[in-house]
């Protein structure tokens, strides 16, 4: 089976750069399984887990808190706002950040719809982080 190059970068570092068989990406409008030879796309991401498959096995699970992915037939580049391997997530940390996001959402209640949406997206992505931490 053909492989493609997967790169996962956050502003603070390059987390992953290697040949993989398949990547499952939490796109804004639903999970997307990407194989080699995919049509070129640019997608926005929501908070969720990127799963990497190699040789028929799921080898890597990383939580991303949102960002973008650029897909070309030979390469996938994920620009994550923030990325952590699922095993390193902590539930208490996630709970704390949910609290922060909820407060920010409440504060944005009278703000413009765009700001409210952004705060909502943040809250949802933090909830996804807690769920991911719980499942791990």
């Amino acid at each position, binding site marked *: 089976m053909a492989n493609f190059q997967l790169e996962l970068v956050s502003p*603070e*570092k390059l987390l992953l750069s290697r040949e993989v068989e398949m990547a499952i990406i939490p796109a804004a409008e639903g999970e997307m399984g990407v194989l080699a030879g995919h049509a070129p*796309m640019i997608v*926005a991401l929501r908070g969720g887990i990127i799963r990497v498959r190699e040789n028929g096995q799921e080898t890597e699970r990383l939580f991303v808190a949102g*960002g*973008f992915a650029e897909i*070309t037939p030979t390469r996938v*580049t994920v620009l994550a706002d923030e990325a952590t391997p699922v095993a390193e997530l902590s539930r208490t940390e996630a709970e704390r950040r949910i609290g922060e996001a909820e407060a920010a959402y409440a504060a944005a209640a009278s703000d413009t719809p765009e700001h409210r949406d952004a705060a909502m997206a943040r809250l949802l992505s933090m909830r996804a982080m807690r769920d991911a931490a719980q499942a791990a």
Partner: protein
Amino acid sequence: MPSLKSLRSRINSVKSTRKITQAMKMVAAAKLRRAQSQAEAARPYAERMERMLASLGASVASSPDAPRMLVGTGADNVHLLVVVTADRGLAGPFNTNVGRFARARIRALEGEGKTVKILTVGRKGAAYLKREFASRFIGEITLAGKKRLEFADAQDVAHRITAMLEAGEFDVCSLLYNRFRNVITQVPTEQRLIPAPLPEGEATADAGGALYEYEPTEEEILAQLLPQNLAIQIYRALLESAAGEQGSRMTAMDNATRNAGEMINKLTLNYNRTRQANITKELIEIISGAEAV
């Protein structure tokens, strides 16, 4: 001629100064390494962001309802200058260089009849520019006391700029900072943030000439991508400036240590000469006293 005692105390004081500058040099060297590796770690993200933006921006920029962050307000009257300096001094000409560069820039812009607003990041730049341009200040941000620069810090700065843009408080935004060329050389640089300069992209070539599909829509992605790009540009500048600060401090402290060493040699020579002169004088006094008897 200075007395032996005063020479001795001067030698001691220069010696302790040398100890301090030497320690500062070591600390700066260690911090420089850390700052450099952090700046390197941020590079891949910025590069990929640029590539994505190139392919996106080109197709949207020509449409009439392109976002302001990309094309600006169309006017060119109010300039916002974000001046990035260090929070601490004793770094050689590091802070003064940016300060002087910013001052020249402000004068030039005002000479053309534009309005200038200043936002500083770092205490030293604020202190430097306030003397002359206090009325143009709209804010100052300090990152003092932070052990490590985080992306969130850059995002805070970006949020402030975005909010001002939405309120229509400026037309053009530029970032003035010290670009890190190498440990000895930092170059004061101006980088335009808004309207976003589009990188000349051949990104589509890489996708096999095919055009990208977008999910959700081009506009929505761009609306998220642009603020992120703003933050990453600022983050990059902050990191470069931090690395430059340490590099500049290291060089300055190295020079100071060397100068202190020279000074000690000179003073020691002087001290020994004076001591010998004193002994000789005493001997002469004794001998001439004995001869007189």
